[in-house]
């Protein structure tokens, strides 16, 4: 870099677009990953707190049998399917197959809606049976974690839907990539929530 400093004394004019340092990563991607890092810590904070509550709560296993593992299992499959379609959309966008990218994004958004719908059914059944958030440590942890996660799925669905409309006008593959990244992140969190509340 020092040698370059000497050489550049000669430069009198510079081509537009050449005036910046080369970075090699699209700025949208860096920005999104910084945001995502924050999101990981938010959900990580909830999950870590819940793990601590779980470890100090002796009746966890007696309560966790009341959750609906069947719906949660279906929801896991739904999220994983959404992840597959999201990554296929990402791949299509980077090979400039925009029609396919939109189609796959639509499928992902559909998965998001199915997930939120099933979650809603689950909640209403549980509340109907008297399992409300203030019941005990298990249920307050359950509602807080899955509720926050559900909001993230909803947000992810809206982002995916928004990007689906956005790439009709602007062909920015990074937009598809970022939307897919968000979906994968929400998916990974669910992979831990599923055993945490439903299986064990």
């Amino acid at each position, binding site marked *: 870099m020092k040698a370059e400093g000497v050489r*550049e004394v000669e430069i009198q*004019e510079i081509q*537009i677009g050449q005036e*910046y340092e080369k*970075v090699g990563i699209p700025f949208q991607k860096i920005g999104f990953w910084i945001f995502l890092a924050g999101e990981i810590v938010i959900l990580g904070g*909830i999950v870590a707190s819940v793990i601590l509550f779980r470890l100090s709560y002796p009746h966890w296993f007696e309560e966790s049998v009341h959750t609906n593992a069947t719906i949660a299992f279906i929801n896991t499959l739904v999220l994983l399917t959404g992840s597959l379609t999201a990554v296929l959309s990402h791949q299509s966008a980077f090979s400039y197959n925009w029609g396919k990218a939109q189609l796959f994004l639509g499928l992902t958004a559909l998965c998001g809606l199915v997930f939120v719908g099933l979650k809603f059914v689950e909640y209403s059944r549980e509340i109907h049976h008297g399992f409300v958030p203030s019941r005990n440590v298990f249920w*307050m942890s359950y*509602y807080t974690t899955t509720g*926050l996660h559900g909001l993230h799925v909803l947000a992810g669905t809206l982002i995916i839907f928004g990007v689906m409309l956005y790439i009709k006008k602007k062909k920015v593959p990074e937009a598809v990539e970022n939307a897919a990244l968000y979906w994968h992140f929400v998916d990974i969190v669910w992979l831990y929530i599923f055993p945490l509340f439903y299986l064990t």
Partner: protein
Amino acid sequence: MGGSNMSGEHHREESFIKRYIFSTDHKVIGKQYLITGIVMAIFGGVLALFFRINLANPGFLSHEQYNAFVTLHGAIMFFWVAMPILLGGFGNVLIPLMIGARDMAFPTLNMMSYWTFFLSAVILILSMFVPGGAFSGGWTVYPPLSANPEVLIGAKWGANLFLLALAFEFASMLMGGVNFVTTVLTMRVRGLTFMRLPIFIWMEVIASLVFLFSVAPLIAGALMLLLDINLGTHFFRVEAGKAGDPILWQHLFWFFGHPEVYVILFPALGILAEVFTTYARRPIFSYKTFVYANIVAAILSFLVWAHHQFVAGINTISALGFSITTVLISVPFSMSLVVLGLTLAGGSIRFTPAFLFGLFAFLMFIIGGLTGLPLGAVASDIYFHDTYFVVAHFHYTVFTIAVLSSLAGIYHWFPKMFGRRINYTFGKWHAILTLVFYNGFAFPAFFLGLAGHPRRYYSALELGYLQKYQWIHELMTISTVLLLATQVVFIFVFFYSIFAGEKETEPNPWESTTLEWLAPSPPPHLNWGNFAPLVERGPYEYAKNGKDIDFIPQGRLVKLKGETAEK
């Protein structure tokens, strides 16, 4: 590269609203942050004035008002004054200018960041006028008190709105942080490698990252607290048959709360580095030491939080560990201060208002840092905890950071921001009077603390052993009144100078080296017109060629050629 419009060719005629209200221009957003921060500082200062008067003259406020004002004063000064001025204000104005960019990487996000912040300030003020009154549980929001509306006045709607306002403020600063880091990583102008970045830029990036990673767990905690207040969960509430864990909140809060102090300290140190090098006409003593020391401090800042909880009943072994990390973190900060001090050595110092504020901030911060050590060691902290000693300590750190350093920055960059200058003589008197009155208020608090006066108490007269120290409270209150009066005059002069101050036509009035001084004052939309800065050397090339030329700018403007890349 990034941004919606990088060409700089066309100046669109825009409406007033788009130019000055919902602007995406980083300089306008920075000024909006700065001015909102100053307005909130008046608000927070008036709250302080009220409860100071109450302490000198008990009965001036009701107990509930007193608690609420103390709570809001703390929260406002941290989140609605220090952060918007040091990060939102200076960060937005200076980051693109100092790295030679035309705007932030995400200009629209930047605008949303400011308006989210504005909304948060409105919500905070509204929270004082809800049924049940303002939240009065202290700025640390400790449960179980804060989560129990049956016990604490204002713990229902006051607390809800308080937490909501905090959430919006955090969201706003996170948007800003994403922007700052992305912009610095991807939009540096050619030749500006990482080790040539002005130190202020390093500090803003470090601060943004520390904020990002420390605030996120607290967002999770705030969600749990909101559910405790509104849905009857008991994450933090301890009632018969429902044992929650208030210590968890303390951990989550201080995991953020302590790094938060550094989030505002890093930009302040950055300002000091710029101000010291410019006015002492000296290169920074050791650029690499300064940068690496602060990176180490940033990492360590995640491992010191529990020294706020030594008396809360935490595990004694971890308390020992936190005691050690607390002493350790003073090492990198001492190194930074030594570098700053040695920068002054042998310099030919120009005593401008900005330099005076910088120097005073430097000296006061040494007091603040040293008095932190007895609070970081378990044995002495048990005595000092929650006394006025803590109040004095954090006013010597945070007031220094948020007010003295910010004022140094304001005096330093005012000509660049507004194209006018603040009267020098006024500035010097402002600096000296601020220093005197500030010490008159903060220094006596050490003695109150040593005498065992607990903080947050409504009145010293209610405790027998403290009655004889009432005169110290009166002294502190008089100093506070004078300190605030000085700042009120400054704020008048500040706004007067924006519109009618002496015009500053010279783009580089302080003969400084960094890139922002190459742009016209005030810089136009997209900053550089048909030129681009090209960087050829490090940021602090002062006193290089003997006495004739005592500074070499970091870069020079080069004409742009060719078609615009984006329309």
